[in-house]
């Protein structure tokens, strides 16, 4: 009497794993070398990905919080025209209307205008910002970039803070007089005199070479716009909340002639930088994955060719081609899991360590600051990135394992058994 085979695939999982593990242990040096190559690759992938995520976070944070904010509300069409004619005439009402929307950490008002900055001996084009000195410090990082002097002092209506590059071009320093001129609604040119109280150095060219910051109330009087502002700038609780928050703001302000723009709507370049850096990193990751998987493929092919007779024997014993195929794939998976897990532990550990203490790349600080990056990078280990890497490695390894598995499953038992 013969037994009838039943439940073959699942019941055989344990034997696949046992055979896979023991076959790997049969050649410990080869297994260790392959797993080490895989581990180093996964460690590099994990660390590079964490670096990439850290960079991205820095670029986004620095761009959004240096000046722009997460979201800006303008009068409809202002972002394109930049004309004071398109202004928010009752900003208090707008702020009250949106104050109960969740996701807003803080908000402030600004007047933004292009004009001419003049000193006794020179003049230069400038972006002039009228800001609320106290509220601005809660929203942006401008005040933290003071390199000389002080941030706009409370009650000093004639104070001005400007970028150190612009100050150099104008040949002025702390305490010097600065004259600002700009077009006002109606077409006239108005000017106002300020005293330089502070210089900022952010590393961002637009800010350092072009910006002048003055108190909001003085700017409003000088430009003759009453209580009106050009921007209501919002800092969200997090980057993840920016898009849903912008949607809620649009809903709340519908029909009021307002435009609601996210940070990357205002300057798509920053997002493009982030996307480019992201794409570049993934190209590197792809190359590393290909190299590592070539190693896995090589090992599994060697192993398969050494065991042709064994596969012929298994076939003779009644193992179907599909089962031989599964067995080799499982062996590959075990190898990848060993290398992948050890690599992830190393890469993840390094990412957490440097995430805490940072990687100092200040030698390249100028290039980094241009791209809104800090000279000290803090890798950021994100679950979705890690899952993507491990998933890609596992998927790739299975693909690499398919070739030897397919070859093993296609062996003719009689000729395989003749192999030495």
């Amino acid at each position, binding site marked *: *009497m*013969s037994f009838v085979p039943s439940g073959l695939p699942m*019941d055989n999982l344990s*034997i696949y794993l046992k055979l896979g593990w*023991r076959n790997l242990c049969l050649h410990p040096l080869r297994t260790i070398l392959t797993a080490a190559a895989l581990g180093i690759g996964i460690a590099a992938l994990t660390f590079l990905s964490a670096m990439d995520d850290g960079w991205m976070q820095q670029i986004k944070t620095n761009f959004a919080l240096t000046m722009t904010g997460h979201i800006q509300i303008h009068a409809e069409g202002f972002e394109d025209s930049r004309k004071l004619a398109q202004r928010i005439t009752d900003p208090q009402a707008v702020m009250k209307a949106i104050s109960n929307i969740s996701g807003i950490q803080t908000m402030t008002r600004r007047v933004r205008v292009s004009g001419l900055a003049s000193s006794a001996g020179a003049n230069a084009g400038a972006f002039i910002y009228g800001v609320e000195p106290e509220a601005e410090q809660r929203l942006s990082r401008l005040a933290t970039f003071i390199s000389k002097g002080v941030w706009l002092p409370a009650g000093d209506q004639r104070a001005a803070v400007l970028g150190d590059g612009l100050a150099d071009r104008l040949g002025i320093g702390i305490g010097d007089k600065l004259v600002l001129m700009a077009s006002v609604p109606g077409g006239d040119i108005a000017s106002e005199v300020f005293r330089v109280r502070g210089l900022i150095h952010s590393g961002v060219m637009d800010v350092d070479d072009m910006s002048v910051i003055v108190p909001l109330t003085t700017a409003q009087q000088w430009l003759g716009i009453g209580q009106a502002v050009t921007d209501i700038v919002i800092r969200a609780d997090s980057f993840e909340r920016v898009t849903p928050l912008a949607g809620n703001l649009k809903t709340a302000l519908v029909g009021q002639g307002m435009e609601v723009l996210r940070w990357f709507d205002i300057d798509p370049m920053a997002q493009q930088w982030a996307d480019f850096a992201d794409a570049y990193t993934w190209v590197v990751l792809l190359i590393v994955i290909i190299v590592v998987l070539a190693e896995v493929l090589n090992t599994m092919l060697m192993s398969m060719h050494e065991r042709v*007779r064994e596969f012929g024997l298994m076939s003779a*014993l*009644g193992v179907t081609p599909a089962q031989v195929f599964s067995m080799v794939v499982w062996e590959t998976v075990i190898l990848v899991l060993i290398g992948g897990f050890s690599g992830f532990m190393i890469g993840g550990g390094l990412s957490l360590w440097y995430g805490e203490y940072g990687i100092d790349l200040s030698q390249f600080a100028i290039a980094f600051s241009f791209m809104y990056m800090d000279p000290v990078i803090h890798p950021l280990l994100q679950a979705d990135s890690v899952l993507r890497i491990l998933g890609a490695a596992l998927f790739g390894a299975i693909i690499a394992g398919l070739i030897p598995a397919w070859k093993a499953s296609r062996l003719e038992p*009689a000729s395989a*058994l003749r192999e030495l």
Partner: protein
Amino acid sequence: MSDVLISASGLTRYYESGELKVAALDGVDLLIERGAYVVLAGRSGSGKTTLLNMLGGLDRPDSGSLVIAGQNLLTMSSAGRARFRLCHLGFVFQAYNLIRVLSARENVAYVLQLQGVKKKQRFQLADQWLARVGLQGFENRRPDQMSGGQQQRVAVARALATEPDLVLADEPTANLDSHTGESLMDLMRKLNEERCTTFVIASHDPAVIASARTLITMQDGKIAPVETL
């Protein structure tokens, strides 16, 4: 149920060597009854192993027909032939061919696992068969920790553990000393008598040939008249 286990007709198999076409099997007709103990004798290259491979579904003839246990092997897919081997056949090879990373018990239990036998039962059966072939106490040894004779006994236990209709043995004593070889043949003959399992053994070992109940002599891919002893 017919007493005929194997029915082969006109089995032909050619091998190509350069431009030369050599008939390894040349129109072999064969009828073997259940419970038979058959020895295929003949010189090297006479076609014994080729015929054994055909009977085991390990190779396909260029022409002819082959029915074993009522099933036509030549119309089956690779997977179908593998399942047929699992359910109906057992193999003993000249080079033992145990799985080197598995212990004696695991080697025997492996085919039972393929049949879906539960863990506890398959290990019990494996231990019983190892004891039956005189290897009690060797259950946890791996092939490289056993002698050739011991490994071949494990192979016999593995071949018989699934209670197949037919056991095919290819030069089972070729790598064994004469005493161990005789002992193995005694065991196989005893199992044949006790369990009525059909054995077809290819060998040119005189001791094996002497143990045959049915002797088939092969020459140049053909069968000489069958001789029942």
